[in-house]
């Protein structure tokens, strides 16, 4: 048996013991996870520094504050999330219990990514634990130092059997994908996502795919440009642009371009000093392969700001490209780096058309002081999520579902959505063997009369308010009396 098979097997056996079902157990595990995040900031930071040259403050800001917030929310609301959810009844089921019971799925596979390795690997795990599942955690091998921290330290805090960390590269992942899971949660790119869906097909396993795409950023003529550009610069160059919801490219009027460039240049300097290469708050490209890829994307476009780079350090300066054409290399794939192309469009309508001709992105950003325009642009486009007048922030609102559509993904999580996403919502109808008289109308031999009653009783759905309920019960009593009289005397 391979190492991966063993881990999955053990997780399943642990799940079948039923211990992850109790809410107390789940809350205890979540609290342990919280303790881990708080107690091990140093190790987490160290790993991130080695992997992504993330600065010390970057760890809580971009990774762990969000996790703490999600864990606290889950601990606070778990009882409510996991409780039976009553639904409306029909005439026939008025005296029955009708509700939805959330239940764990079983063993979930969480495949993380390297760009925010804690946020996108542990984030889904929180939902998995809260929903009562076992979870096999497969961190990205690209962020290898973080992967090691997860492998070494998580087992010291979480149930080793229920939540094993399985590290490795492509071969190990392929071996994992041969096993049967009850759900696969993947964060990454579209190419691998297709492979995952194919593997999942074999076992009829549902999947959540958090992918990416080119998230457009439209800047309207009517907006506070200096604030807009500051927020865009922050959204773009954090983590060196290696964010699935980074503003990928800008669409603006030709008359705005120069000012946009000036403002972004100003903010780059404010954030990262004159020499970002020396600034501790500016990261690096994850590896040589991505560095080369990004340098290749520059081809054919005009650099307005930045462009400096150093291969040995995987350093690329915060860069802005001007007058970019739609067929430029940089517009053919998700950039995932610190290159910010500006394309000019003559109107919001042209921007909408441009966006709609392309695959649906994970995020859409609109900067405008005109709320009506914002609402129109939202209504006329499609994307995973929308954020007006800022970047990235919607990721952190736990009451908003975070996920893609079309090529940018399927399914969503955060907050209660994370819990529901990894639960089975089981429909429950609890009836008694009493009131059998009522059922006569549905049994053969069928008559027109019975059909009439059945049409009315069995299927008619009525919305009951608490006042209406009393009135309807009274009415029901009358009908029951009539039916009993008709059929029992037959």
């Amino acid at each position, binding site marked *: 048996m391979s190492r991966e098979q063993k881990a999955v097997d053990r997780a399943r056996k642990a799940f079948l013991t039923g211990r992850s079902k109790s809410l107390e157990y789940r809350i205890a595990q979540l609290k342990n996870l919280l303790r881990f995040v708080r107690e091990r900031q140093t190790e987490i930071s160290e790993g991130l520094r080695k992997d992504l040259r993330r600065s010390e403050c*970057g760890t*809580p*800001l971009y990774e762990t*504050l*969000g996790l*703490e*917030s*999600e864990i*606290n929310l889950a601990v606070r609301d778990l009882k409510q999330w996991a409780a039976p959810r009553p*639904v*409306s009844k029909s005439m026939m089921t008025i005296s029955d219990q009708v509700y939805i019971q959330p239940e764990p*799925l079983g063993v979930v596979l969480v495949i993380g990514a390297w760009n925010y390795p804690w946020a996108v690997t542990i984030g889904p795990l929180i939902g998995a634990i809260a929903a009562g599942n076992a979870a096999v955690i497969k961190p990205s091998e690209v962020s290898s130092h973080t992967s090691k921290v997860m492998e070494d330290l998580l087992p010291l805090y979480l149930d080793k059997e229920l939540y094993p960390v399985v590290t490795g590269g492509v071969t190990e992942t392929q071996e994992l994908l041969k096993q049967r899971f009850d759900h696969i949660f993947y964060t990454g790119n579209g190419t691998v996502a297709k492979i995952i*869906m194919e593997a*999942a097909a074999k076992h*009829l396993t549902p999947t959540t795919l958090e992918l990416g795409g080119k998230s457009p950023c439209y800047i309207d003529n009517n907006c*506070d440009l200096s604030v807009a550009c*500051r*927020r865009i610069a*922050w959204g773009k160059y*954090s983590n060196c642009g290696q964010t699935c919801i980074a503003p990928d490219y800008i669409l603006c009027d030709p008359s705005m371009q120069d000012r946009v460039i000036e403002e972004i240049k100003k903010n780059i300097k404010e*954030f990262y*000093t004159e020499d970002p290469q020396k600034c501790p*708050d*500016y990261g690096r490209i994850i590896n040589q392969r991505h560095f080369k890829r990004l340098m290749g994307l520059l081809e054919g476009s005009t650099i307005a700001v930045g462009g400096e780079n150093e291969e040995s350090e995987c350093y690329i300066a915060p860069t802005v490209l001007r007058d970019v054409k739609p067929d430029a290399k940089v517009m053919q794939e998700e950039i995932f780096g610190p290159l910010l192309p500006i394309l000019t469009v003559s109107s919001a309508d042209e921007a909408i058309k441009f966006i709609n001709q392309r695959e649906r992105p994970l995020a859409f950003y609109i900067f405008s*002081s005109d709320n009506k325009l914002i609402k129109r642009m*939202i209504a*006329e486009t*499609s*994307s*995973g*999520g929308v954020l007006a*007048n*800022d970047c990235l922030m*919607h990721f*952190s*609102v736990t*009451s*908003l*579902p975070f996920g893609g*559509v079309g090529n940018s993904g*399927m399914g969503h999580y955060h907050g209660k959505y994370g819990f529901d996403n990894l639960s089975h*919502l*089981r*429909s*429950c*109808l609890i*009836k*008694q*063997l*009493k009131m059998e008289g009522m*059922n006569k109308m*549905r*049994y*053969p*031999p*069928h008559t027109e009369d019975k*059909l009439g009653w059945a*049409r009315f009783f*069995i299927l008619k*759905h009525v919305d009951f308010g608490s006042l209406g309920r009393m009135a309807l019960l009274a009415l029901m009593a009358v009908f029951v009396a009539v039916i009993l009289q008709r059929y029992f005397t037959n």
Partner: protein
Amino acid sequence: MESQKQVLERLRAAFRSGVTLPMHFRLTQLEAMMSLFEDNENQILEALHEDLAKPKFETVLSEIEIVVNDICYAISNLQTWMQPTYVGTNLATKLDDCFVRSEPLGVVLIIGAWNYPLHLILLPLIGAIAAGNCAILKPSEISRATEKLLAELIPKYLSQECYAVVCGGAEETKTLLENRFDHIFYTGSQSVARCILLAAAVHLTPVTLELGGKCPCLIYGRLDMKAAAKRLVWAKFFNTGQSCVAPDYVLCTTETRDALLPFIKEALESFYGSDPQQSPDLGRIVTDRHWDRLVELLKKSEGKIVIGGESDKKTKYIAPTVIVDVIESDALMQEEIFGPILPIITIKSLDEAINFVNEREKPLALYAFSDESQVVTTVLERTSSGGFCSNDGIVHMSLPGLPFGGVGASGMGNYHGRWGFETFSHKRGCMMRSWLLECVNVLRYPPYNESNLSWLRWATTAKKKGWAACSVM
């Protein structure tokens, strides 16, 4: 005749034009669907009778009324469903608007099944229309008369721009699946479902699978045998056992079985008379091939037939049959029966019954009959299934408030009522930030420092009840 590609292009163009977005359009289409049923009840009854010898009562209840009910439900609730839902924010985002929009996915594919050929293709369509999508319907070619009826009526009542029926068998379906859809909704078997998932993977298309499995029926403890027998028999032999949620087999003790059998016999006689073949209220098996499969299962089974067992190939008739002394390895226990054959497996304890169920794939429905509420609760808590119903069968799927769908091998995703609307929608998280409070944002910008970080921690982790927690990434 339009090719599949042409149909798809036409629907995609229609979707891009935005014609399906306004609520008025969706309501008009739903009302048209209602008219389709009102105007054509006789044709529907005829078609279902031709395909499955379905009695009028069953057609009305399970093909017409259930769909019409859901249409009414959608019409009355559409406005609410379409409204964006505003959600909570925290201290740092108090001036912002956060809401969730339900948006259409685009062009969806709905593949129906032959056992409830109208219901299983039109009920999903309600959700697709309500959510603002265009849809291609691919009815089952096995239920030929209904397929023909759908191909005739859908273009007559619904917008031809936005909804189309594509007919054909396995080859045509395979070709259809090579195209890109924004959602695929499939009802049918597990083996075909795997092919559908593989086809969907090519385009990263989300999928809803309504499959089946062997739905166990546990009968245990103290109970009203007569009532239980009637409900069990009704649920099992409805549509001649050809229901994805029919109780597939019974698990009970020998005593219970012996006490139950006479009541089952009595119920069958009261429903279908002493010669069920003469009863107009019992349907037939859908095709010769399916009849052959069921008769073969009966032959191979090592159990003892205690009721029924008769069959007639010419009329595709199989009598309501009950078989006892069936063990795990029996032919009847190796696949979903999907016919009027009820095996009874005896167990010695509730634990044994629950373990039996848990050793198998998660079914679409699970039934427990008992007057002891503790028994029902124990079964519910220690098993998993798409849906659960105690002391009755099938009826849980008639409630539009309950999501109808499987788990594990019995499927993924769900529909009925609002769940159908949600299945065919994308929940888009939207946030409109204020231009103000840039001073709070300052805390997140580089150069990073500890002091800013602690202010941020305070501002974004407000734990007051009712506020969503929020943190800066």
